[in-house]
């Protein structure tokens, strides 16, 4: 396998890891998988691409606006949809799942209606920089993606350890009822977790759309990949989603390389069933088995 493929593994892995980090935050705060995070990332990337291509906006403004929109979408989802439905149904899993799938569909269609239904190219943040390591060359966009991934993960890690809300989020994640009994602002922390997840996937969508472009249907696949990355990594640590993302990216690159392109989807299905059967809580587990 050529060394250049490893660059691609790192690039895809960082992206999956960021989306999985978004899942992780929502899972800690609200105890459910926000499948709409994939479309949020797509909406962020597509908004910026459209603003730059059709309206002539500079990259910086378009990117910031795209990321902000992803965060706003995440907050609106929580306040206007998930919370009322949770309150009505008593926190059942199925109604929230349906609500999230409905959001996924609606955001996808909204993007398709607003920005058109064709693939749009993203723009690299560092188009003129390449890093030549002798055996591989790394383009500027990959450097930015890796740097942003490291900064995001470190930021979330520090935030969950040092800040007030971050610590409450960890408390809520390990025992919601106890946190509520202790008088912690569970609802507000949930909202913060949603917003933060929106910011993270918004950034991820920006950075990844420069690689392969973005269309209104991209979010669906991204949502599934991020979910799988989290399933592989587990929720034992903040860094687990990144490990899961890198492993998933490695599998997605190696399997087609050795077994042909169609085997990829079979392999992904097999990995998912294997993990659910053997290690349902992922590779990194926080709780001690007794």
């Amino acid at each position, binding site marked *: 396998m050529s060394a250049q493929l490893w660059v691609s593994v790192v690039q895809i892995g960082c992206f999956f890891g960021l989306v999985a980090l978004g899942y992780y935050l929502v899972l800690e705060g609200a105890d459910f998988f926000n499948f709409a995070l994939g479309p949020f990332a797509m909406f962020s990337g597509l908004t910026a691409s459209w603003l730059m291509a059709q309206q002539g906006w500079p990259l910086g403004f378009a990117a910031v606006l795209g990321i902000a929109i992803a965060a706003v979408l995440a907050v609106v989802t929580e306040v206007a*949809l998930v919370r009322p*439905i949770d309150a009505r149904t008593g926190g059942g899993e199925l109604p929230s799942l349906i609500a999230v*799938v409905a959001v996924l569909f*609606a955001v996808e269609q909204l993007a*398709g*209606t607003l920005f058109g239904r064709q693939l749009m190219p993203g723009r690299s943040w560092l188009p003129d920089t390449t890093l030549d390591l002798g055996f591989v060359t790394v383009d500027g966009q990959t450097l930015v993606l890796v740097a942003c991934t490291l900064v995001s993960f470190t930021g979330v890690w520090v935030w969950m350890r040092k800040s007030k809300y971050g610590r409450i989020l960890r408390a809520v994640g390990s025992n919601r009822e106890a946190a509520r009994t202790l008088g912690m602002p569970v609802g507000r922390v949930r909202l913060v977790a949603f917003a933060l997840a929106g910011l993270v996937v918004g950034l991820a969508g920006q950075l990844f759309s420069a690689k392969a472009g973005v269309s209104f249907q991209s979010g669906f696949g991204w949502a*599934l990949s991020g979910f799988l990355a989290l399933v592989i990594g587990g929720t034992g640590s903040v860094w687990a989603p990144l490990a899961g993302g890198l492993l998933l990216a490695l599998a997605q690159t190696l399997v087609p390389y050795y077994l042909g392109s169609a085997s990829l989807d079979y392999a992904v299905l097999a990995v*998912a*069933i294997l993990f659910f059967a053997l290690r349902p809580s992922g590779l990194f587990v926080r709780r001690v088995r007794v």
Partner: protein
Amino acid sequence: MSAVSVKESAGSFGWVRSAETARVLGTLVLTLGVIAWAGGDLFRQDLALLGATYALLALGMYLPFNLAGALSLAYSAYVAIGGYAVGLVATETGWPLPVAYLLGAVASAVLAVVLGFATRRLSGFYLAAVTLLFGVAFQSFLLDAKEITGGALGIGSIRPLTLFGGEVDRRSFIALTLLVVWIVAVAVDRVRRSPFGVALQSSRDVPAAVEAAGIGVPALRLTVLGAGAAIASVGGGLFTTANQTIGPDTFTLSLVMLAIFMPLLGGQGSAWGAVLGAVLVVELTFNLQIFERAGSLIFGIAVLAVLLIAPRGILGYAGQGARWLRGRLTRTGGTR
């Protein structure tokens, strides 16, 4: 006058049976109305066919999802199996096409039971994700196994159905398809109100109680997953027969998303909600040209609105309205 007659029989069991008869006959009249509406118009025939296929898909998902609470998203695969069964039987063998419907239904049911068994410990988000991945893998199988499925081109020039020695033309075939939808919807609605259906709905809400009553919940789930897959597969088979072609793009993953929302929109309280939802989806996404391509967006927003403010769907509120009206009528009848 009619209010009095309703009141007279309201207390006895006979009244329930007459309401049931009225429902069955009323929906039959509606179905015949749709058949007459479609008539010889090609565009209307397409709409009716698409609506019928969606309705069968939604009815297939109604049993495991709306009644038993198991959200399996592999239905695009089951519908496609029904379609490819017709394609393969028509082009590779000389068997009559109804054999293909049967084979497709059996194959889908077996696959659904196997997948259901493999994922029997999963529920909610995990079940949805794994079955969705199965749908993705099946789609690449359709593209990849060129010897069986014809790859990206699919299978074309499928011969029409022959019954009693004569070819069934498209118009009669679509009438037949709509009648199949009516039969399946009546049957599924009967299942919902049968003891089996009650056990199914209880297994969604309180599985422990159903287990305690001596009914195995896993076996119950596998049964309805298989039955639902068979129904969806028949839908795919009928659609393929009418269009005489099937490809990997005929039934995509997004179809499953539409199918989840159909009973929500129509009303989950009855199997007819799934059918009504299917009609609405076809109307919104294909027929309403004034919205240009925003029909799907309107559909998505409608689903969100229904989820938020009208969780019982259109039929649920219509039923409530009818009960209220009947209550008013019988009360005034009583004081008179």
